[in-house]
Each structure stands twice: as structure tokens, then as C-alpha cells.
């Protein structure tokens, strides 16, 4: 049994002239969770989004051992300081394996994003191998003006094998209260999990959650605000003219054209993409397309239909 705890923190670097930068103020690996500061690679829509107002620090998580194995207790703490930006990636997929005594492995992730800070967390695929027993628990607290992009994918069993027991809870709280709280349960203990209400036998599932309360730089933040807030159950919120593209919309072409995907507005400032697919390549393509739609450059008309369909 392994117990590992890693901690990562960033802060906004004092800068004279030019764009503000992000400094890594804590980088403590806890075997097998190894943290590595990395150089920026070619920009992606996500890294461009993350670095919108502050140059983002880049860190990768590398597993120092196989697993997690049953019985492991792992913990990752991420603290993104006010005004800073962090892109946290992962080197390789995670293969969840059973331990010798059938004990549950656990990964607890605690994320705190301070005011006006940004986190893009892009863990690699998690594979719930046969007979594994694992629980991931992710808690995110977003302070005022904080931005988040959280991408996760899971594959239910390696090729040709049934899924092990897998639980993954993700909870995001903002200053307005709980925004998102969902636990995906798969494997032998979860009734109906592979049936037509939950995954319908799709082997891969994933979500991308985007919270982005900031108006696009250089645009009038107040114009044409018609959003009611506090009126759930009424018409979906409309895109604000003069704002950065609001994440998600009921009429988004992604929902209309992609059979296993939905782009869902959670609040005026946040959206969830949820996708199911027969394989991880298709899943990644569906999620990436939806993310590109969500994060497309702000000078495009947010209301214009995006040619997402095949």
C-alpha cells in the first residue's frame, strides 16, 4: 500500500512591464505523484485560453509507479494563487489495478483557485482495468473571477476485458454555491451502469467543465446583458453580446449533430460537455470539438453556428 501526497501552488509574479507571469511557489512531489515543471509546447486552444490575461505556468504530473493499486491512498493539492494561471497536464494514462487484498485505491484531489486565477487541468485517460476498485474524489473551490477548465476521460476496462469498480466524484463550488456535483459509478457494483440510461455499453466516457466568468479583454462587459440568473427552469440563458463566448447553449450544434455528446450550460458563466464513445479516439475527438467550440476566439460572433458536425 502506498500513501503519497503531492502539492502544487502558483502565484502571480511581480512584473514591471509586459504581460503578467505566473511563478510556481510550491512544487512538492509525493511518490508516486511526481510533479514536473515543463516548458510550453505548441499552443492549443486550451493553453491560449488559460494564458488569456497572465502567462501560464505549466506543470505535468508523472506517475512514479504503476497503478494506483488497490489500497493506495493518494492526494494531490493544487493552489492557484490570485491572478496566476496554471496548465496542469499529465505524462501518461493512469491504469487502475487491483491490489492484493481487494482494497479500494483512492485519489483525492483538492483544488483551490483564488480570485481571478485560472486553472486548466488536463489529466490523461484513466483506465479501469478488470477487478480494480478505485475512487477518485475531486473537490474544486473557485473564488470570485476564477476560471477553470477540467477535462477527464475514463475507459471502462482494457481491450476485451470488463470494467473494474470505478467511482469518480467531481464537485465544483463557486462563490455562488455548488455548481456541479456528479459521481460516475461503473463496474460490477453499479446497477445498470452499462445500460441504456447511463452509458449504453459505450467503453469510453468523458467530460469537460468550463467556468469562465470574465468578459473578453477589450470588450464592453455590460452591454446587452439579458441574463436573468436565478431563473432556473425558464428559458436557457442567451449569449451576452459584447462578452466572451458564454460556454454552452441549448441550441449548440454539438448537441444537435453529435450522437453521444451534449453541451450543457450549468450557469450563465459555465458549461459542461459530456460525451460517450465506443473508443477513446472518438471520445477525444468529440470532447476536443466541443472544447474548440467553447473556447473559440472571442472576436467570432458567439451566436453564429459553428461547423462542428461531420
Amino acid at each position, binding site marked *: 500500500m502506498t500513501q503519497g501526497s503531492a502539492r502544487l501552488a502558483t502565484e502571480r509574479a511581480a512584473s514591471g512591464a509586459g504581460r503578467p507571469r505566473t511563478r510556481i511557489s510550491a512544487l512538492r512531489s509525493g511518490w508516486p505523484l511526481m510533479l514536473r515543471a515543463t516548458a510550453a509546447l505548441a499552443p492549443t486552444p486550451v493553453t491560449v485560453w488559460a494564458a488569456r490575461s497572465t502567462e501560464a505556468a505549466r506543470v505535468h504530473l508523472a506517475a512514479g509507479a504503476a497503478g494506483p493499486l488497490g489500497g493506495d491512498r493518494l492526494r494531490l493539492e493544487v493552489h492557484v494563487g490570485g491572478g496566476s494561471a496554471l496548465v496542469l497536464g499529465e505524462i501518461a494514462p493512469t491504469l487502475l489495478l487491483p491490489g492484493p487484498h481487494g482494497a479500494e485505491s483512492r485519489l483525492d484531489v483538492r483544488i483551490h483557485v483564488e480570485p481571478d486565477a485560472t486553472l486548466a487541468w488536463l489529466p490523461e485517460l484513466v483506465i479501469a482495468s478488470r477487478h480494480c476498485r478505485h475512487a477518485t474524489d475531486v473537490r474544486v473551490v473557485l473564488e470570485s473571477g476564477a476560471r477553470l477548465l477540467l477535462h477527464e476521460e475514463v475507459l471502462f476496462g482494457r481491450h476485451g476485458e470488463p470494467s473494474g469498480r470505478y467511482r469518480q466524484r467531481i464537485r465544483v463550488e463557486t462563490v455562488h454555491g455548488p455548481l456541479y456535483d456528479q459521481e460516475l*459509478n461503473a463496474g460490477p457494483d453499479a446497477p*445498470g451502469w452499462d445500460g441504456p440510461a*447511463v452509458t449504453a455499453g459505450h467503453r469510453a466516457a468523458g467530460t469537460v467543465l468550463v467556468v469562465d466568468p470574465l468578459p473578453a479583454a477589450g470588450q464592453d462587459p455590460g452591454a446587452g446583458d439579458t441574463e436573468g440568473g436565478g431563473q432556473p427552469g425558464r428559458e436557457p440563458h442567451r449569449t451576452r453580446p459584447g462578452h466572451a463566448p458564454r460556454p454552452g447553449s441549448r441550441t449548440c450544434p454539438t*448537441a444537435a449533430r453529435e450522437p453521444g*455528446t451534449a*453541451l*450543457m450550460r450549468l450557469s450563465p458563466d459555465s458549461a459542461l460537455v459530456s460525451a460517450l464513445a465506443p473508443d477513446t479516439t472518438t471520445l477525444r475527438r468529440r470532447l476536443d470539438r466541443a472544447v474548440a467550440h467553447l473556447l473559440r476566439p472571442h472576436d467570432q460572433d458567439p451566436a453564429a453556428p459553428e461547423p462542428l458536425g461531420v
Partner: protein
Amino acid sequence: MSGNRSAPAAPTAALLMLADGRFPAGGHAHSGGLEAAVAAGRVVDTTTLEAFLRGRAATSGATAAAFAAAACTAAGSGSAKTADTGRTAELDTEYEARTPAPALRAASRKLGRQLLRAARTIRPAPALDALAAALPAGPHQPVALGTVAHTLGLGPHAAAAAALHDAVTGPATAAVRLLGLDPFAVHAVLARLAPELDRLADAADAHAAGTPAHALAAPAAPLLDIFAEHHATWEVRLFAS
């Protein structure tokens, strides 16, 4: 004395009325995602229906049960006259966070408003007025259900049982209408699900009182969410959700 032989029975007549599909709170027009599942070719017969219902009960059914039970307990707490609307509003917010699909949020609030409207006529009670005042846009359906259950003299276990009953009988009835399935075969499915529904109601009941709202169950059903969002864009549909 005969009273020594068994504990006082839990009220049943009010529970049967509340859980009855004929209770006029608008549930008949909702298929619980079944219409979209049928259109996607995912539910075609009683076997696939059973898998659908099993998954629905364990996910959105379990969430509804947890929140109905907790709302029932909250309605019974506080002073004798006024319910604990702070806790009730918190439950409503937490349920919202567990319902990512806007179409399902809208359907839940609509059903909550309709249930509250019906209940305020059928059995007016201060707790119902307090709920309407605390959540002017309408409470989520499980929150309304739990509060209504309390005003009918029911406890959290009964509220959870009603939520789970509703979670499976709505789609089951829709399957009979949409697929022309044999109603006996469909009820055989429901009978097989009964022990699981009881187990889920027990679990919901166990967390009705002491568990903080944020720690209540949050089981996800990605496909129900995706179905709901696609369904909401259809130009022609028979069911509201």
C-alpha cells in the same frame, strides 16, 4: 393488548395517493428520458427497458430519493409552524448542482411547481406556502415531493419510496405507450426491480437527517443527460422530457 404485537404501522394510504400515477401533478407527460432512448434505438423491448430502469433508479432515482427524504425531514424540523426553509433551499441548490442538463433542470422545476400547486389545493399547509415563498422559481421536484410528503404525514422513507416509484413507473408507462410493450411484461420488470427500489429508499432514508446537503448522493447518468438535451431540440415529441 394487540398494540404490543407490532410497532405502529407507517401511514400507507397517503403514500399510495401521492405515488399514484393518477395524482394530478403532471408526471404523465414526462417519460424520464425513455422517449429519447426509444428514438435512439437503445430501448426496444422489455430486456432493454429493464436495463434502462435499473440504471435510472440507481442514478437519477437515487438522487431524487435522497433529496426527497432530506426535504421531508427538513420540512418536519424547525418550529412547529415553520419549516426549515434554509435547509430546504440548500437542498434545492445542491440538487441543481447534481442536474447538469438544462432540459432536466427545467423539467424538474416544472414538475416541482406543478406538484406544489396541486398539493396546495389538495392539502394546504404552511410548509407548502413557505416552500413556494422560499423558491419563487419553483422547487426541484424531489424537494417539492419531500415537503409534500411531510405535509401528508409521511416520513422520509416514504418520500424516498415515492421518488423511486416515480423514477421507474414514469418511463415504464411511457414504454407501454411508445413501444406497445405488453403491460404485464412491463410490470414483471417493475416487480423484479422492487427489492432494489426498497434498498435505495433505505439508503436515502439513512441520510435524510444527519447528512449535510453537500454530502448527499450525486450519481451521474451521462446518457440521460445527453438524451434530455437532444430531446429538448426535437421539433416533434410526445413527452415533455
